[in-house]
């Protein structure tokens, strides 16, 4: 089994590192001598497609070696990657156990989770930081999903970015000071190198075996996002959006770092899984320490005692010896969870840090599809899912509310957005809110389920919008479109699949539906079960339900607005053309997945694959002990309310769709009228609830003020102090000079002067007359004698 882990790690590492290799080659290769050379794209596609093959192989290997324990007997074929595996599926164990690679001694089922270390970054005493890998079914599913979508988007981008294949690219959105359009050489290769780098970072994030490593790749995807948003560096709006994206993400990362600090200081490790030291000792990972093997999190007097000792069964227990116990305050655990979640808020554009994502649409559309809908922004959800065992009920409640608010706020803004990509961006935020909500209310599987399905249909829709934009010569405003169905049928139909999927439409009474229905259904069912347990938090069901209706409304609005009705801009309409095959084929592939990836719903392959990695404590639910803490529903409880929630969701979606059809499809009501009626609301929504202004006033401007203050402080205070000291010293030295000149020099001068004047006086004696000298000699001799006689003692 260890052998399998190594193999999986090797395969995934190849899939992970290939894009890096691709990036290196593309960067050094430049544009391969000619601006119209597509080699860079081929390399990038080759790398990511090979990555997809490796990931799929790994998934298949994992399934076949573990005997498809993840898929229960009820599962059926139909999923591309593992359709062949369903027949010989074994019955899974008594849990969806979140066991760790080496901790659990082989029981009656086979090991399904693997972990290990690539190499060590540093070691300080007992503290160890390394690059690890952690592979379970979630990792594998994510790998396959990311590489698949990325491959499609890479191929699409070859078509979308073909305008860059020139020496003289005219950027119509940038004007030089003389009023002309801006000309520059094309940057085709650079786009693909960034994409490759992004794929590398994203896969590394998924593969990461410890939270610190997650943080590393977290930042790396952030910088890739920065580079890709700011791909049109000449556009001020693009570079500003890129800055905003990165800085807002950094705000989230600030919380992330605090979480990391707490974890690091309290637990002494970042590792998810238990670690085997060279001497055979096993170090517990984060999850084992908090949850032990039974998944229970116990706090006594606000202190959580960590389970750091293994009993004879290999279960992690609290050490009996109290001196060996490691503890962490329960509040600290909450703060740590909130901190890490803060990072997720930033990356997944949750309220209150959602403002960067709509701006991020400045990037080329394939980027929006890959980075800002399907993968990177979902990383926050992925991390929240991965880190689930560390979250206390309080943190989960926060997550649920944040998700709920985000879903609603973003959906309302999407109603009034007119830019086709902005609508999709807000929809992305809203859907991410759904996922967070699901995780928060205990629907671990539902949340990640939605993550995968959303990735497919949202990337599909973005690519469709990209196709539209390319067809409309970079026109993104929906009011100028309309009636495009005839001109670009493939795009329109694939888009419709995406819209139906996200709206969560299904044929009532059956489970024949596109992917979005299943995942959204699962989320709403969990939310309903949750509100039944905690009636205080009833909004956590009602708002998502309402949002589901709004979602259906604005998505259909988008579709009707764009593809039906009469062309609103005749000039534009005449030049519209369907995109080439290189762009439509990825659309078709993705639409197949958007439609069918969730077949079977919660009995389906995908859901089972995901929930196989579900933390052990989720299935049983959780009963809050005190009045303040919340309870989480068990799987059974969720299952009971499933049909109710499904019906409600379907109803809401149909309502939304109908309204949209009435307004935009049939034109019964002029939307302009509504806009005039509710001008204040419209303005509020169009202004994105005023978050940008608020943050600008609250943070950006004060930051600049503080910065100016700091700089001025340096100049006016520190330097001034220094200057004052120096001036003081100068004054002192002036006085000193005066003293020197007046007193000390005065004395010396006095001596000198008197000597001089004596010399001047004596100079008169030196007449130069020889006779006088002789006289002097004679007088001197005489005087000498006289003195001799007078004073020399006689005898």
């Amino acid at each position, binding site marked *: 089994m260890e052998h399998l882990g190594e193999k999986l790690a090797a395969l995934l590492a190849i899939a992970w590192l290939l894009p890096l290799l691709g990036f290196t080659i593309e960067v050094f290769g430049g544009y391969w001598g000619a601006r119209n050379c597509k080699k860079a794209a081929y390399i990038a596609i080759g790398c990511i497609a090979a990555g997809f093959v490796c990931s799929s192989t790994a998934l298949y290997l994992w399934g076949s070696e573990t005997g498809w324990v993840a898929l229960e007997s009820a599962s059926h074929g139909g999923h591309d990657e593992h359709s062949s595996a369903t027949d010989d599926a074994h019955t899974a164990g008594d849990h969806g156990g979140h066991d760790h690679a080496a901790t659990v001694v082989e029981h009656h089922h086979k090991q399904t989770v693997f972990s290990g270390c690539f190499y060590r970054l*540093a070691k300080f005493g007992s503290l160890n930081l390394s690059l690890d890998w952690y592979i379970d079914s979630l990792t594998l599913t994510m790998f396959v999903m990311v590489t698949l979508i990325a491959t499609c988007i890479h191929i699409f981008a070859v078509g979308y970015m073909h305008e860059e294949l020139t020496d003289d690219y005219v950027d119509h959105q940038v004007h030089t000071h003389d009023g002309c359009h801006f000309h520059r050489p094309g940057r085709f290769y650079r786009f693909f190198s960034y994409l490759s780098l992004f794929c590398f970072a994203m896969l590394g994030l998924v593969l990461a075996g410890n939270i610190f490593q997650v943080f590393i790749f977290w930042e790396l995807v952030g910088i890739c996002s920065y580079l890709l948003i700011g791909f049109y*560096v000449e556009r001020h709006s693009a*570079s500003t959006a890129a800055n905003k994206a990165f800085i807002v993400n950094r705000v989230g*990362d600030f919380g992330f770092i605090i979480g*990391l600090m707490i974890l690091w200081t309290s637990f002494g490790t970042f590792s998810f899984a238990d670690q085997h030291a060279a001497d055979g000792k096993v170090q517990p990972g984060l999850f084992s320490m908090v949850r032990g093997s039974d998944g229970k999190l116990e706090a006594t007097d606000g202190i959580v005692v960590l389970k750091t000792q293994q009993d004879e069964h290999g279960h992690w227990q609290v050490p009996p010896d109290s001196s060996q116990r490691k503890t962490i305050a329960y509040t600290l655990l909450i703060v740590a969870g909130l901190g890490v979640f803060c990072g997720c808020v930033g990356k997944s554009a949750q309220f209150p840090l959602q403002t960067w994502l709509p701006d991020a649409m400045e990037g080329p559309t394939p980027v929006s599809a890959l980075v800002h809908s399907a993968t990177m922004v979902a990383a926050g959800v992925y991390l929240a899912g991965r880190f689930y065992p560390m979250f206390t009920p309080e943190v989960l409640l926060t997550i649920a509310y944040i998700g709920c608010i985000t879903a609603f706020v973003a959906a309302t803004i999407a109603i009034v957005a007119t830019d086709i990509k902005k609508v999709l961006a807000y929809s992305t935020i809203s859907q991410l809110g759904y996922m967070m909500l699901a995780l928060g209310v205990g629907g671990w599987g539902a949340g990640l389920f939605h993550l995968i399905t959303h990735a497919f249909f949202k990337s599909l829709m973005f690519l469709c919008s990209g196709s539209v934009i390319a067809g409309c010569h970079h026109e993104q405003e929906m009011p100028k479109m309309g009636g495009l169905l005839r001109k670009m049928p493939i795009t329109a139909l694939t888009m419709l699949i995406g819209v139906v999927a996200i709206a969560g439409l299904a044929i009532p009474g059956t489970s024949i539906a596109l992917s979005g229905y299943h995942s959204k259904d699962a989320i709403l069912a969990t939310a309903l079960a949750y509100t039944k347990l905690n009636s205080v938090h009833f909004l956590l069901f009602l708002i998502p339900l309402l949002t589901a209706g709004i979602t259906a409304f604005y998505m259909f609005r988008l579709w009707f607005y764009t593809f039906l009705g009469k062309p609103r801009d005749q000039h534009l309409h005449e030049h519209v053309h369907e995109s080439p095959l290189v762009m439509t084929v990825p659309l078709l592939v993705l639409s197949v997945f958007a439609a069918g990836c969730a077949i079977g719903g919660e009995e389906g392959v995908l859901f089972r694959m995901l929930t196989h990695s579900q933390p052990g404590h989720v299935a049983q639910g959780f009963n809050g002990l005190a009045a303040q803490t919340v309870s989480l529903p068990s799987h059974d409880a969720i299952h009971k309310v499933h049909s109710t929630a499904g019906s409600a969701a379907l109803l809401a979606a149909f309502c939304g769709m109908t309204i949209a059809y009435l307004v935009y499809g049939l034109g019964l009501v002029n939307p302009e009228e509504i806009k005039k009626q509710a001008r204040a609301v419209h303005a509020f929504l169009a202004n994105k609830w005023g978050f940008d202004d608020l943050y600008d006033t609250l943070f950006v401007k004060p930051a600049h003020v503080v910065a100016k203050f*700091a700089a001025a402080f340096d100049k006016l205070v*520190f330097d001034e102090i220094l200057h004052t000291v120096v001036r003081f010293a100068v004054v002192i030295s002036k006085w000193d000079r005066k003293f020197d000149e007046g007193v000390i020099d005065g004395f010396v001068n006095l001596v000198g002067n008197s000597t001089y004047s004596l010399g001047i006086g004596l100079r008169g004696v030196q007449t130069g007359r020889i006779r006088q000298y002789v006289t002097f000699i004679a007088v001197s001799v005489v005087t000498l004698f006289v003195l001799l006689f007078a004073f020399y003692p006689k005898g």
Partner: protein
Amino acid sequence: MSPEALMSWIIFTPTLFAFGLIFFDKKAEEPMRYWSLCGTAVTFLQTLLLACSFSPEDAGIQHMVKVPWIENWHINYQVGFDGISLPLVLLTSFVSLLSMMASWSIKKQVKGYLVLFLLLETGMLGVFLSLDFFLFYVFWEVMLLPMYFLIGIWGGPRREYAAIKFFLYTLAGSVLMLIAILMFYFGSAPEGQIGSFDLMQLTAMAEKGDVFSPGLQVAAFILLFIGFAIKVPCFPFHTWLPDAHVEAPTPISMILAGVLLKMGGYGIIRIAFPLCPYGAQYAAYVLVAIGVTSIIYGGFAALAQTDFKRLVAYSSVSHMGYVLLGIAVWKISESNGAAVGRDYWLMGMNGAVFQMLAHGISSPAMFFMVGVIYDRVHHRDINQFGGLSGLMPLYSGLAAGIFFAGLGLPGMCGFIGEVFVVLSAWNFSKTLAIVSASGVIITAGYILWCLQRVYLGPEYKGPHLDEIKANPLTTRETFIGATFLAFCIFFGVFPNYVFDMTGKSMEKLVQGLDTGYQNTQRLTGGVQTTQTTQKQN
């Protein structure tokens, strides 16, 4: 050549080459530059040889040479290295080599410049290798003087002001250090005997705990700390740095940022802490607070700058704050004075040294990048740049990479140092740790905003556009930039090479400090200790 002899060769090779310059004709600028480059390259190769003789398992000083110099006062010519100083020696010779390559832009009085440059390198290497306090001081001053002239003669328009400011600040620091040196010299002597300048001996005495009284340790630590903090530079003592950096010529800015600032940190680690563990612990909270303040303050100040070089200079203040923070996260238990969570402190210490190294690579690179564009357009106003990415794509790519390293991007050297230090800080103080973590936002803010204004955008807004077009990046400049960037990435991906080097020595140091503090407290200072620990909370 034995490592013992090699060390002296390393220190004095630049001087020999400086002597060699005498025989060149004043007009022969190009040969002189190559000769000096040769000198720095030889020094660099020698330091590499020295690194080969280093054994990472040995925690103590390796290959120590001790030759009496002034015997009456127990002053020795004592050099040696361990895992802490070796990386810095390597960094010094490396940065010197690249700065010398960058010195081609110096056109005025080349001979004098090169001689001073080489003398400066001798001083720097001497500081890192000397183990005698007196010798250390001598090299410290040897380094100061060439720097003064290099800024004062080859600097920008306000060079006299900057040079004098630099000189006064540093001299003030050295004077304080001198007082501390004498305190230890006389403090280490039993009644009526001659004291010691031997740092190893003094460290051992401090560790024993009964030689230096707590009062002496606290006083000496404050003196030493201020002396070194000026060099680091820490928050209240940093104002010389922007001026010196802005006015100094590019290669000297590189040296200044790459090596000189590291001396402050090195001095604190090598001298201030080991010699007065009690004083260090006494002041730990203040030190951490100063470090955090530097991080935040430097970041904000950088955000407000419009002078490109000044921005980078303030980023240095911010980045060096992490060094101080990492060094000082020494938490003790109230009951017995033993360090709490020593591994975290060890991590902070290691992180601090790594941060010095990382900053020693990324910051000179940033200054070099500023210098490259300054050589062409002769101004540094950030708001008058823009669009360079289109005009000089290669240059902009290198610069962006290097600025990302400064930003603390994972996979580049800045990240490891900053994050390791910040992670270790929680153990010491929660509040300060959170404040220090907020530095990541500010850093991202000023670096990205700067990148946007300088490199992005449609067109160049300032003067001398023709100069940019006429002078693409030369091979020499590309080489320097690419080398820096490569090292940024290398250390970011494989930090373990550095940590393997520093690990053992650092462990020994931390162990010694812990013991030293406990001994001092037990043997001498019961009353003050309670005050100290109360202060901790």
